[in-house]
């Protein structure tokens, strides 16, 4: 007996067409409720539909708005049934994201029915100092990248006597390739808010801000709805004291993820970082004592309070407790969001959970533009703050991009530098000029104009940028270059010495070849070429060709390929 039908309409689902599926189902299903929920993390299977029956749930993947799929769903048929792979089930541990994709995100009632706001109630019965102690004992470290112990930050704020104390939720998830925080805000906005309210009680904060990227409209919408419900139901009145809550939209500046830059941005100014000390706990938003935590850190708090620090800290490693969400993307089968215990190895995430084929992966890029590349030979490294640091990478916020053998590491490093050089706010000379020099040097190498001196320059300048920059952006910007130089120097050498891109990615070092024995002369490539570089007798003019791959894509017999550039 079907209870209700849920369609995953987080932004990943919508991009895959979940809106159309939802509209179609709600129009054509009359006997049951059709509701919109968030994302269960299996993004590769979107659009996803869950059929809730009296005793269990059935999931359907890649659903289309067709009569056939509708019938199959209503019959709870075998077609398109999503099976949860054992390899993944055995490794993941859903605590923080337990409710994501399972409940209607904007329903306060449903969140409460599933244990929501019980942790806040419990915390309100506790002395604020004990709540801080509990978070300290849990071993929770900042999930935004830095890994600073959350409880210690809270203790510093709690000790301040000021009338006005500020809590900020850093939801400016700017790392390209990271989307865990977005998912939490879209799928369980009340859980993030519950964490913040517990923090407000523990630290005595009077006002809370959520600084969200403007690129996340759905997250903003769900948070705003949740906050309206909180205010309406007076959930923000903590032991008689009303807490002000505001959502502030970012305006597209990566550096605003840095805490002092974020504070400036919240004050309506250019988001430039400043020297610390004074730390925000002493001199923050408009001069008030301020603490900034990341979305995922706040979402962990209700879990800690509910089960207690002892239970919480049973999961994880010596220095890194609890679970971590990772956004898996890139060259692997099962993309999406996964929650795993700290201490799991990179290989387990990439191969077992992500389903990447062994031998097909060259490296993972972890921690976004501030992080580093970890080569496949180090995939037995456990995922915790300290192990990753020792390899020149960082935990970062949790973006994990799998890089296949067919990608070029020099070009990957160039890509990250292109990003950070553009996003540098320009305050520190080393970051502003140094990163631009790194970028130019990498461009020279990928264009085949590099020399050994260029590689030496990268190795020399990189560490100086780290030392000469004020904030996290500059201090970590050279990481992608330094870590690829450390583990993939042979690729740099090939570009410089042999003028060859081993992965055949760098356009200036490849050309397009048509295998005339395989070619069936269908002329599809000739017609497709946007720059008319393929003649009627199907020969490629190397000088005109832009290596756009359009011909390779349309060729029905795979007769066209990229090969190393042949000299004169």
């Amino acid at each position: 007996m079907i209870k209700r039908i849920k369609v995953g309409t987080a932004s990943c689902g919508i991009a895959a067409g979940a809106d159309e599926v939802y509209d179609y189902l709600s129009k054509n299903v009359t006997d049951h409720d059709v509701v919109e929920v968030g994302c269960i993390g299996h993004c590769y299977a979107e659009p996803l539909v869950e059929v809730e029956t009296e005793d269990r749930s059935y999931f359907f993947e890649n659903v289309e708005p067709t009569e056939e799929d509708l019938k199959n769903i209503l019959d709870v048929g075998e077609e398109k049934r999503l099976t949860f792979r054992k390899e993944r089930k055995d490794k993941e541990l859903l605590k923080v994201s337990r409710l994501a994709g399972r409940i209607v995100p904007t329903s306060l009632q449903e969140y409460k029915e599933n244990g929501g706001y019980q942790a806040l109630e419990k915390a309100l019965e506790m002395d604020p100092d004990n709540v801080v102690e509990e978070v300290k004992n849990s071993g929770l470290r900042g999930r935004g990248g830095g890994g600073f112990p959350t409880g210690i930050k809270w203790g510093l704020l709690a000790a301040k006597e000021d009338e006005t104390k500020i809590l900020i939720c850093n939801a400016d998830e700017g790392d390209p390739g990271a989307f865990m925080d977005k998912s939490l805000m879209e799928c369980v906005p009340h859980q993030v808010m519950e964490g913040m309210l517990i923090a407000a009680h523990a630290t005595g904060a009077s006002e809370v801000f959520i600084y969200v990227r403007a690129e996340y409209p759905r997250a903003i919408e769900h948070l705003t709805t949740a906050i309206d419900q909180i205010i309406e139901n007076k959930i923000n009145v903590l032991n008689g004291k009303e807490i002000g809550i505001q959502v502030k939209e970012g305006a597209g500046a990566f550096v605003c993820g840095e805490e002092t830059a974020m504070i400036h941005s919240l004050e309506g100014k250019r988001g430039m970082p400043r020297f610390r000390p004074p730390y925000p706990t002493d001199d923050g938003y408009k001069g008030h004592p301020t603490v900034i935590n990341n979305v995922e850190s706040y979402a962990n708090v209700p879990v800690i309070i509910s089960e207690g620090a002892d239970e919480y800290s049973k999961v994880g490693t010596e220095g890194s407790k609890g679970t971590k969400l990772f956004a898996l993307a890139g060259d692997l089968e099962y993309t999406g969001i996964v929650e795993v215990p700290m201490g799991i190895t990179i290989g387990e995430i990439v191969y077992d959970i992500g389903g990447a084929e062994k031998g097909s992966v060259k490296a993972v890029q972890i921690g976004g533009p501030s992080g580093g590349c970890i080569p496949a030979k180090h995939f037995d490294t456990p995922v915790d703050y300290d192990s990753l640091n020792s390899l020149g990478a960082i935990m970062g916020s949790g973006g994990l991009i799998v890089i296949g053998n067919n990608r070029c590491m020099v070009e990957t490093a160039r890509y990250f530098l292109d990003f950070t050089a553009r996003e540098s706010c320009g305050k520190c000379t080393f970051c502003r000029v140094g990163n631009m020099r790194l970028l130019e040097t990498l461009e020279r190498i990928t264009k085949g104009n590099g020399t050994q001196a260029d590689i030496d320059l990268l190795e020399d300048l990189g560490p100086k940028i780290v030392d000469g920059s004020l904030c996290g952006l500059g201090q970590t910007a050279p990481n992608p270059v330094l870590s690829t130089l450390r583990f993939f120097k042979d690729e740099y050498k090939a570009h410089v010495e042999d003028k060859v891109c081993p992965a055949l990615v760098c356009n200036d070092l490849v050309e397009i070849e048509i295998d005339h024995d395989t070619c069936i002369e269908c002329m599809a490539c000739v017609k497709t070429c946007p720059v008319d570089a393929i003649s009627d007798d199907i020969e490629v003019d190397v000088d005109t060709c832009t290596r756009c791959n359009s011909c390779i894509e349309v060729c029905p017999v795979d007769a066209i390929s990229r090969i190393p550039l042949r000299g004169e």
Partner: protein
Amino acid sequence: MPVATYLKEIDKDSSNLIKALQTVQKHEGFISDENLKELAEYFSMPPVEVEGVVSFYAQFKRSKPGQFIISVCDGTACHIKGSDLVKNWITEETGIESGETDDEGVFSVETVACLGCCSLAPVMAVNGKVHGNLSRKKVQKTLRQYREEAHND
């Protein structure tokens, strides 16, 4: 329209400047010289300070965009899955490159950092609606639909 009409709800405290700029851009599509001066007056600050904030943040536009804004995602996952190709395909179809608006005022193209739909890479968004798993055909088809819609209006 004078910007003050949109700003009724917004307090004159200068910490609301970014919010005010966002509100104006939402209605007008961009921040004109006129709007900028009005905002400076509203918050009692020099126009140059407003301009400083506007130019710092990638979100704010100083020229009128097309009816459909195509945001090509160049996040890490999209990049390794071929966002450069997506840009080429869009240029083929629209005749404009990132940062430009076509002569008819139908399309603007911009490159953005990450739309957070990495598992569907490569993706682009048109006026905020995300289109994933792009191929050349899909880009063509999608943009032609939008063009048709523009002509019908």
